[in-house]
């Protein structure tokens, strides 16, 4: 299957030939084989950082898809105290990054940053290491704890040093982060468990790419959705940017870790 007739002028992906061939104009080309191996060819005129973008931003993810894995929208963190068990954090990129950095300060390791390769043939859902450097939007936590370096000139992401987890882990719980607002009362539970049919609501949908790319038959697609929806799901109220006092954030993270500890059982 190839990219639709109106191929992109910047991004092109041809899945109708072997290996899959993708190109980003001005950066280069990626070739991804059926076993997930990939090669990268950088344009001679490409600016600095093109190789990194092609590999970690694209080829590595395509390789995961070719290995039959799905891609989930969210970052996956593994607690040092419970190797083999992971928490998937979804929501806006900014809030995800803040929460993962806070977890990292508590000794957690990052298995996958923002996009998580996962095996959905279970249950359980097994997350695999993404193997790419961790990124955060620039201006995330501009305090001394995070000293990222700009990923690329002209870009707006910074590389942040986070301990990486290298072994696959079972996602035993997941949270979707929403910003706390004036209608959320101070006494509202920081992490509320989402149960029943609500787990299938669009706002909690994290399945970005079903492995493989081509949509599977409806029965298989439903099975994948149910597999993901079986994971205990929490809705995390993250302090509004107007109220990001240090102690407020710390107490929210305490609540999150406590919730995960309960939910995973």
């Amino acid at each position, binding site marked *: 299957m190839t990219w639709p007739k109106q191929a992109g002028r910047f991004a092109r992906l041809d899945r109708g030939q072997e290996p899959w061939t993708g190109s980003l104009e001005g950066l280069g080309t990626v070739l991804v084989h059926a076993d997930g191996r990939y090669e990268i060819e950088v344009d001679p005129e490409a600016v600095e950082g093109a190789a990194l973008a092609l590999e970690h931003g694209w080829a590595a*993810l395509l390789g995961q898809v070719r290995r039959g894995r799905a891609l989930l929208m969210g970052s996956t963190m593994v607690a040092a105290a419970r190797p083999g068990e992971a928490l998937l954090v979804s929501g806006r990129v900014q809030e995800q990054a803040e929460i993962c950095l806070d977890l990292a300060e508590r000794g957690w390791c990052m298995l996958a940053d923002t996009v998580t390769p996962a095996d959905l043939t279970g249950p359980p859902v097994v997350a695999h290491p993404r193997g790419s450097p961790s990124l955060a939007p620039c201006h995330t936590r501009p305090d001394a704890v995070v000293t990222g370096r700009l990923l690329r000139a002209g870009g707006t992401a910074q590389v942040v040093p986070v301990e990486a987890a290298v072994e696959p882990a079972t996602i035993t719980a997941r949270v979707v982060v929403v910003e706390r607002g004036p209608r959320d009362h101070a006494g509202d539970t920081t992490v509320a468990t989402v149960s029943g049919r609500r787990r299938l609501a669009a706002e909690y949908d994290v399945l970005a790419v079903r492995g493989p790319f081509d949509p599977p038959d409806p029965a298989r697609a439903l099975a994948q959705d149910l597999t993901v929806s079986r994971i205990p799901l929490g809705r995390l109220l993250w302090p509004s940017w107007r109220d990001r006092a240090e102690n407020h954030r710390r107490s929210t993270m305490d609540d999150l870790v406590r919730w995960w500890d309960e939910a995973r059982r």
Partner: protein
Amino acid sequence: MSDDHPSVVWLASYPKSGSTWVRAILSALRVGDDLFSLDVLTSGSQPFSLAGAIPLLALDPRWLSRTEGERLRSDLVCQTTTPGPLFRKTHERFRTQPTGWEEGSEGPEPFPSRASRAAIHLVRDPRDVAVSLTHHFGLTLDEAVDRMAADEATRADPGRMVTEQPWGTWSTHARSWAQENVPFPVHRIRYEDLHAHPVEALHPALTAVGLEVDLASLAAAVERVSLDRLQRAELAQEFRERHPHSAAPFFRRGQVGGWRTDLPARLVRAVEADHHEVMAELGYTAVTDRADLKATTRARDSGRRHRRRPWTHLPDHLGLDVRERPVPRHLADSRPVNAWLEVAPGHALVRLVGGARALVREGHSVDVEVPEPARASGDWAWTVQGWAVALAMLQRGHLVLHAATIDRGGGALALAGRSGAGKSTTAVALLERGCRLLVDDVSTMVDVHRHPAVLPYLRGVHLAPDAARLVGLDYENLPHLAAARGKATFLADDPGTTPVPLQAVVVLDRSGSSGEVQTRVVTGAERVALLLPHATREGAAPAILGPDAFFRGLTRLATSVPVVALARPAGDDTLIAVLDAVDGVLRQASDEGPPASPPPKGG
């Protein structure tokens, strides 16, 4: 999708203009009641989101640069597989390439013409939009009105998976989607028409963009998403498009003309001043008369210029380093000049209204502290623009006249006088007669070829309500001074940095006994006596300069230029006569020409 059959139909609108309602109608056309959900309203993600690259390409856009992100956006928009119209919501203003794209090179289209079939452009009375914005974004009414007039944009940020999202002002947004700018058909619908006759307003546009729908089906869909039904649906389930900072429901009254009760008169004037031209183009009638519109426009323009800089900002050419930091209540080893001013060698501490304090050191450094509880009470720029500058200039050895100084190309004219004499009012009024305001209140005399010249700098002019009215400014729409000083600040155009030779000093006095304005050229020692109270700066000048140096400087000033006493009766109805009198002085000074350079000494 192919080039021959582009499918995207943009639902383009400034926020809070009814696009969600239209999307709900479109959803109701597609699905039955049992499947209708607030969370899956027609039109998916907005085009600025790059997250779609992950499911479509397995490409993580955070690894891209800003320009690469904009190019990817264009590709993502073009990716569609539906044969029929694909409605996509956007609040962005229309443009043919990203803002600031390199000139001369063809940028990627944010709204690619090869994918765009048409646009349905929704517009709504900006006065109602302002009210609705407050509830949606949790803003105050003032904030909402200012936002509608601000051409700010969220920059492209691939690190957050977004491209730029420029709304523009309400006016530039509306004009951008006018047909002549857009390379595909645009069907404009006014919210008010949609509200009154939704089927009649919507059907032609939907038919034109290729959505086959009969009137009866459309009417049924409209009925299904009536406002009270949407409100009930929102109560039953959280609506995820409701802004996190909003305490109000998303679906409120949706009424037309609610601004008449919800928007205070001064903000009605503000909205109309900001947008009256486009309002007229779209058929929205302003209620403010022309003169008031002009007064409000001037006030709003001034306020915008004022807010561009932090309150501690002073122009670079003054050479003053201003820092906000704690200031002691008293100065060690100091001599009190009066109840609120202390001086020591090279240092001056002033305690200001509202509990603010400023410490000025060696003519180059200013520390200023404002009390935390009162910080939000208004504008604090006056704490650095006034006394701090005056004290610094005195520390540098300059005389500082308590005067507003203007210029009309022939040299500077200083308007001195006691508080309430009308210096600032007269100076601002003279702007309408082609004058330039060099500085208000702190007229620093510097030596240029051994002749006094006034050092200009941009600062706010403080006007009481009556004075603002007299000079044609909408007082309520000017930034108000903090600490309940009962005045607002007006910022004229930047006067530049070059000192302007002083041509004359006019001393205004409200004690005139006759009913007329009278001018008198003052001679002899009376000049010094007349200028003295306006040069002492309430004792600060002789204390800092030293009595001898102060007197020498004052005498030199008084003998260098004509000094004119202008007596006016109390009351405001003499402004025109005052302006005419000052005009006369200016003309005379201009006729006499700039002062000649003194001959070199020695033979």
